[in-house]
């Protein structure tokens, strides 16, 4: 029994251009099969484990959807605690790219020590918030922030990010700072590599960001999606919007300046990820300093439907749950990759029309990395048309 979990991209070439990029997926929308009929409290730890690439965001989205469906909201302090955990995971996911994947693509040795230090600090955050380990409790566990430990662990994460880019990341989130870095320590980084090859505008496509909280008809579209088509190939009013760091931060001054100069191309996308990290680290410091303690909310579980959205490193993650008789009656997960790697979506558009030469494979892989799939993704060269 094989578990399908990948994306395969095949580039069809004609003359000196990529004629078509076919994005095929062997992923399964399995959440409903996995969780239907089970008790909500039993499935949340499994959500965190089975979707562990962004397991915190998945679990927080699941908690939020279940709590809304059950009419049992957690006290507000838990919203901040969960936001802190999700943001820290966002930083760690981008940080893995900065420390490990970006150097490899740029022909440099990966910064595995920085990547490991970041992961270690991030994983220790739950214990500094929920000392009993009950953060997945519906209605909230016992929240008792250890502010000193939180501050220390977030400082370790920031130090690891700074080490990965050879510069304080906060100083990169301005046009001057970014450009100085590209000319200096960043010249060997992936953005420097891209700029050095003149690939700043590579894959620039018409930019169609999704709203930050998702399409306004999301709940209705998911409720009506009985055959799973929307989950696998989502659209917003018939269009194929994108989600992720660029969609989230396109109004940031640095990102807006790069959009104006290079369009929604490769360098703009990489810079948006740096901005996402810098913003998240600042927000994390604020949350860690102000987070109050709080008990959970007791009570039973009503029947109903609930939807929760979370911003992950890769973009908008949506969980929708229906409860009946205290059990999961329906469970839907819409992941950001479904938007960005949609067969007619922004990555397909970015790959279509690329020049065919001996760097095509590398340029295609750079674009895939910029869109940041949450699963294995291969790029193959398909037919050559006359």
């Amino acid at each position, binding site marked *: 029994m094989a*578990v399908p979990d990948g994306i395969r991209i095949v580039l069809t070439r004609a003359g000196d251009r990529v004629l078509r990029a076919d994005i095929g997926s062997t992923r399964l929308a399995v959440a409903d099969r996995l969780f239907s009929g089970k008790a909500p409290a039993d499935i949340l730890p499994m959500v965190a484990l089975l979707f562990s690439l962004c397991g915190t965001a998945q679990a927080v989205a699941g908690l939020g959807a279940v709590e809304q469906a059950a009419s049992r909201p957690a006290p507000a302090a838990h919203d901040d605690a969960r936001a802190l955990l999700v943001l820290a995971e966002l930083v760690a996911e981008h940080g893995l790219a900065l420390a490990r994947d970006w150097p490899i693509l740029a022909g440099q040795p990966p910064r595995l020590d920085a990547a490991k230090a970041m992961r270690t600090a991030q994983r220790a955050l739950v214990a500094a918030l929920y000392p009993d380990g009950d953060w997945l409790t519906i209605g909230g566990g016992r929240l008792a922030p250890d502010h000193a430990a939180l501050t220390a662990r977030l400082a370790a994460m920031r130090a690891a990010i700074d080490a990965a880019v050879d510069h304080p990341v906060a100083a990169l989130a301005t046009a001057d700072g970014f450009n100085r870095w590209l000319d200096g320590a960043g010249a060997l980084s992936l953005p420097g590599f891209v700029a050095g090859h003149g690939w700043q505008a590579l894959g620039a496509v018409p930019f169609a960001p999704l709203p930050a909280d998702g399409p306004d008809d999301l709940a209705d579209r998911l409720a009506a999606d009985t055959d799973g088509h929307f989950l696998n190939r989502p659209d917003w009013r018939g269009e194929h919007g994108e989600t992720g760091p660029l969609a989230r931060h396109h109004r940031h001054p640095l990102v807006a300046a790069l959009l104006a100069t290079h369009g929604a191309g490769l360098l703009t996308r990489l810079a948006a990820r740096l901005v996402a990290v810098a913003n998240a680290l600042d927000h994390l410091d604020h949350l860690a300093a102000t987070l109050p303690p709080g008990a959970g909310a007791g009570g039973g579980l009503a029947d109903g439907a609930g939807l929760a959205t979370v911003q992950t490193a890769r973009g908008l993650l949506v969980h929708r749950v229906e409860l009946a008789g205290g059990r999961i009656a329906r469970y839907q997960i819409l992941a950001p990759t479904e938007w960005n790697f949609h067969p007619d979506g922004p990555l397909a558009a970015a790959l279509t029309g690329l020049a065919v030469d001996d760097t095509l494979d590398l340029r295609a892989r750079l674009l895939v990395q910029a869109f940041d799939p949450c699963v294995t993704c291969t790029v193959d060269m398909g037919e050559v048309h006359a």
Partner: protein
Amino acid sequence: MCMAIPSRVVAIDGSIATVEAFGQTRQTSLLMLEQPVAVGDYLVLGAGGHFAADKVDAETAREAIAFMAQAMTDGQA
């Protein structure tokens, strides 16, 4: 969908492990892990599978695998 099924380590050669899940084997780097890894341990792989992301205790891993197997069996019925 970013599934991360725990994979069992069937062989180790230096910093590279061969892991198995649902009959499929693949190789993955152990360089990102803090903990020591032995044959028989269970790992969760990161995106792309090139690096192991985490070590999972055997009981949790078997529970997750059984959970997944049941869902896939139900889906094929």
